């Protein structure tokens, strides 16, 4: 396979996802496509089904119908653990860090490394030094400035905590990092720092799905924007060729997706 061809296979793709909760239709024939190495923003009004879509992609929800593909191969995630093992890491909106543990401990939480030899195999002793050193190097590579890798996360600011959560995902995600409203609770300066960090995660070769309500954030860093409406993908647009107001208009239904001339992916069927 040439590089040209492999670049054209989306790292992640979903076709015709459906999910019902009783009478409520959360996913209604939803398609999804994430290109290799891009930052794809997923936007949509409250209740549009964004979070169900993301959950269906990351194994937290099993869709009633439809298929999910990773690197062109069909996958059936039964739990978030399956998705993680496949190289997809998710940073959830509720800050998923243990505040009483330090930064290194958080980066390695659930993936602790044991010492080699008898200390590790028989006594199951952790290799704290190795984890500290590698965690510090990882934070440096991502340009996250902290005083000490041994700082408890409770001593960090909201932005720094979010940075730790993102760094954790970037450390273990081999293919895709999913960020759910990573800047929702942050101030202007910290938001900027987290956006920079997301760019560096992309620079490391990872593909990023960014769920966000913040149009400034989305237009600042997204390569493409997936607009979700009424349980399915209304359109995919480029932030370079489509205006903010058009994106919001499609999101809220004020503008039919067909009317957006600059759309990269038009809706597959007539409305």
């Amino acid at each position: 396979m040439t590089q040209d061809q492999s670049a054209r296979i989306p790292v992640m793709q979903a076709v015709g996802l459906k999910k019902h909760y009783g009478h409520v239709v959360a996913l209604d024939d939803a398609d999804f496509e994430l290109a290799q190495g891009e930052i794809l923003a997923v936007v949509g009004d409250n209740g549009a089904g964004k979070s169900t879509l993301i959950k269906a992609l990351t194994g937290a929800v099993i869709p009633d119908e439809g298929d999910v593909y990773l690197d062109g191969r069909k996958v059936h995630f039964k739990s978030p653990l399956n998705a993680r093992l496949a190289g997809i890491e998710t940073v959830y909106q509720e800050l998923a860090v243990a505040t009483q543990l330090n930064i290194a401990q958080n980066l390695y939480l659930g993936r602790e490394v044991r010492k080699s030899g008898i200390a590790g195999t028989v006594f199951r002793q952790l290799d704290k030094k190795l984890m500290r050193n590698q965690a510090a190097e990882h934070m440096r590579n991502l340009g996250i400035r902290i005083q000490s890798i041994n700082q408890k996360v409770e001593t960090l600011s909201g932005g720094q905590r979010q940075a730790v959560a993102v760094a954790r995902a970037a450390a273990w995600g081999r293919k895709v990092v999913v960020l759910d409203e990573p800047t929702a609770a942050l101030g202007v300066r910290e938001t900027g720092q987290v956006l920079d960090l997301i760019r560096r995660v992309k620079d490391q070769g990872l593909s990023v799905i960014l769920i966000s309500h913040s149009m400034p954030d989305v237009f600042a860093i997204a390569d493409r924007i997936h607009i979700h409406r009424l349980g399915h993908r209304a359109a995919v647009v480029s932030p370079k060729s489509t205006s903010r107001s058009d994106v919001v208009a499609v999101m809220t239904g004020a503008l039919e997706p067909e009317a957006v001339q600059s759309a990269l992916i038009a809706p597959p069927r007539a409305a």
Partner: protein
Amino acid sequence: MNSPSALSSGRSIAKKVIGTPSVGPLLVLLAFGVIFSLTNPRFLATQNLSIILQQTVIIGTLAIGQTLIILTAGIDLAVGAICVLGTILAGKLANSGYDPVLAMALAVLACTAAGVAAGGLIAGLRLPPFIVTLGILGIITAALRLISAGGAFSVTDAFLGWTGNTIRLNGFILTYGVIIMLLLYGLIWFLLNQTQWGRHVYAVGNNPEAARLVGIPVGRLLLSVYVLAAFIYGIAAWLALGRIPNADPNALQTANLDSITAVVIGGTSLFGGRGGLLGTLIGALIVGVLRNGLTLAGIDPLWQDLITGILVIVAVALDQLTRGKR
């Protein structure tokens, strides 16, 4: 050139010492020591210090299990009842002709089974630890009174009393029980601080949702904590028989208060995820010193309970306040 860095490193050492969670409890322990030695010169005699250590054995050992459970943001109100279950079963079995080693092993097994029940209900059905262990306390207490027809009986078997044997060390009289307790502290400290299991205990107590999201099997971990704690209560039953050759269904009435006090005074947060075993050992010694010192001063045991009760409330209030600041 050197002095600023020397100064700052001196400062950072000072900061580290103050920031170390066990320093506060240690200062409290020393303060009580000073007060009691001033009011009664006999307090500091090596003989009395040996007695304090021996008196701390049961609560000190029970507090190990209590620490594990409180670190997961749980609480164990059946701690004393499970230990008494161990002493009664071991005593009954040995007195009715069972091999004493087998009797003790079965008793420890029964205690562990109580932990399986508690942990299973808490982890499996997600019932609150407070209610589950309160229920188990009621069940075991009633069952023990039925089994033993309400009365205490003596247990004179040599093996069951083995932990009461002593060795002399520079005038100190250490029982085997004291040594077993200290070994248990060392072992569980290692598990908590040097293994993945220990790290996950802290994580689950701190933020169970985050722990679940990173793939920690939260239910299984909680179950393991309650089972290990109850196993330790079973060992504590053996240590209790070594201290007093008597099995009494009404014993250890203050074990809940004392063990929780030891854990909380030792700096472990009732909110979970914060604290450690070193603090608990100091906390258990504080409880021991307090009860011993007040006894030496001729103060009624009821006042000791009252003061211990105040102490635990003050410690929890401090925990709440420092938590609010963060």
